[in-house]
């Protein structure tokens, strides 16, 4: 759901939302401290290398604190609005998954992309990414093997034609040295 400004409308302040905002505040605080370490000002009071990091960090700390405050001050109003929007937890989506299964699918995709990147030095970039496409379509999306293989082969062929043949990108082939 989007706001008028094209930005998503805020939902109820869940614990994870508050933790996320607090985490950003912590990043801001770290940037502020490190920025001070780099030196806010140089010779003659001129802007130093730590000036902008410190200012940006301070901005994040102040704005995050204000946002946390706003989150809890406006909590009742937001929670009431969100209660009307939230779909039922066991409702199935267009992928045929429930809310819990969707959360698990996100974790699976994160894991598969991570594993594919770890595989790059061994199998090479193209083969690792092709394996990623195949595993996602077959394992996460539970698609039939033949269309999944065709989808993988098509992606691999397109990437090879455009990036390797046409643009001459030197893709790493890994220790296997296949593609």
């Amino acid at each position, binding site marked *: 759901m*989007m706001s*008028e400004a094209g930005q998503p409308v805020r939902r109820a302040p869940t614990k994870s939302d508050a933790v996320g905002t607090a985490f950003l505040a912590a990043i801001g605080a770290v940037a502020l401290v490190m920025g001070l370490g780099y030196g806010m000002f140089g010779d003659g009071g001129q802007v130093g290398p730590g000036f902008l990091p410190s200012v940006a960090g301070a901005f994040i700390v102040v704005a995050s604190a204000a946002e946390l405050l706003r989150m809890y001050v406006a909590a009742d109003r937001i929670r009431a609005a969100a209660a009307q929007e939230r779909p039922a937890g066991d409702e199935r989506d267009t992928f045929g998954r429930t809310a819990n299964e969707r959360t698990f699918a996100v974790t699976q995709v994160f894991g598969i992309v991570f594993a594919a990147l770890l595989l*790059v030095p061994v199998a090479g970039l193209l083969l690792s990414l092709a394996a990623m496409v195949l595993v996602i379509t077959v394992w996460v999306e539970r698609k039939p093997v033949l269309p999944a293989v065709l989808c993988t082969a098509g992606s691999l062929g397109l990437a090879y034609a455009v990036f390797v043949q046409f643009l001459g990108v030197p893709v790493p082939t890994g220790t296997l040295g296949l593609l």
Partner: protein
Amino acid sequence: MFDNLQLGLETAISPENLLWCFVGVMLGTVIGMLPGLGSATGVAILLPVTLGMEPVTALIMLAGIYYGSQYGASTSSILISTPGDSSSVVLTLDGYQMARKGRAGAALAVAALSSFLAAVISLIGLMALARPIADLALEFGPPENLAVILLGLATIVSFAGENMLRSLIMAAVGLLISMVGVASGFTTARFTFGNVNLLSGLDFVAVMIGIFAIGEVLQQIHRGGDPPIRARFRDLMLTKDEFRRSIAPAFRGTGLGFGLGVLPGAGATLATFMSYGLEKQVSKNRKEIGKGAVEGVAAPEASNNAAANASFIPTLSLGIPGSGTTAVLLGAFVIFGLQPGPQLFDQQPDLVWGLLVSFFFGNLLLLILNLPLAPVFAQVLRVPYSYLYPIILFMALIGAFAIGNNTFALWVVFGAGVFGYFMKRFDFPAAPLVLGLVLGPLLERSLVQTSSMGRGNLLILFERPISATLTVAAILAILAPVLLRAVRRRRRSALTSEREEIRQ
């Protein structure tokens, strides 16, 4: 001026130049659609291909790649919310929303028409104003550049409405990310934590691909995904109402883009965001912007194209590149033994005017190609998302690698993707982060130079008329919405208490 126009027409309309212009816009469109490969990379990759050509033909083809890739980048932003270039990021807002509503063909057509209108108007502007504007651009020193950047950041934060605090946080996070690596104008390495890969900073395009492509894919999976669009072919065509509604925003976007495109640096990106912000303030349908309004596509796309054309003004007349792509083109000029600068207009009129007039033909070719092709491109949305998103992940990752042929970029994309997913989940807006990221180095450079000019006193910003006006406008852009909301709230509560008194 008309002699120059005639000379330019004679050069641009030769069959050889027209053919290479066509090849350029075609290749540019394909390159622009690939995540990560923006116009600068496209021009750089294909520069060696043009070395055997006549200089004017080569430059016409390279310019064709430039605006062709801009159109291609807009296409991928609209269809799959994966911007190919920073200047097409803003199209992921309304363009993508239009696509999800089954109006992808219309959004692509509006983009093509707005680009064409902007190209024609900015071409006339280029011919009439190239020299005076170049002289004015010389008046812009570090304080003026700093003020423009502050205005850009303030505009993007201000149009976030209720989400202003989150926008501020994201703009500041964008600035912080841009500061990773050796400081601009200093020798200090910041936020590198001993990692040599971080010394040259985080690649902006890789971060952008992660946040938009990977983040959007994961959010779609989390949200449950949208069903494939089953719209009929004729439903994808532009309606009369959409066409009518896009005219005024396209004109406004062109004006803004042309003005900002002259400034060196991130003129086109800034122009797209500012024109989007402007539509939020002045458009008759401003309440629909953000939900898939044609105004949110027409204005930024027109400003993008106008800014791209205007960026040739400092490039050709001063020898100062107006954007990353014109910097690569400047290199091409040097390779062909040409020296951009005030004398180029006198010494090589056929080349300069031939190149400028070729922009018109290039954009006309893009329009002819893309209007009928828009509904065809839109068919990509009919592919079930279960098959589409693994392909998007594949192309996004290989595109990120291709930026610098560096596997570290893949990890940057992954990290940015995780961050982008959490941003989307907790409704932190992406646009301010992108602008902070793009403008960070420029902001710091201008800040350091301004501080140096003022001997540590940043109030120098208020001592020069242009920078003072722009800085005050930036402050107003932040404060005005907050004050207006407070006034409205007070009025509403006053009205309520009046009613209660009357009732009693």
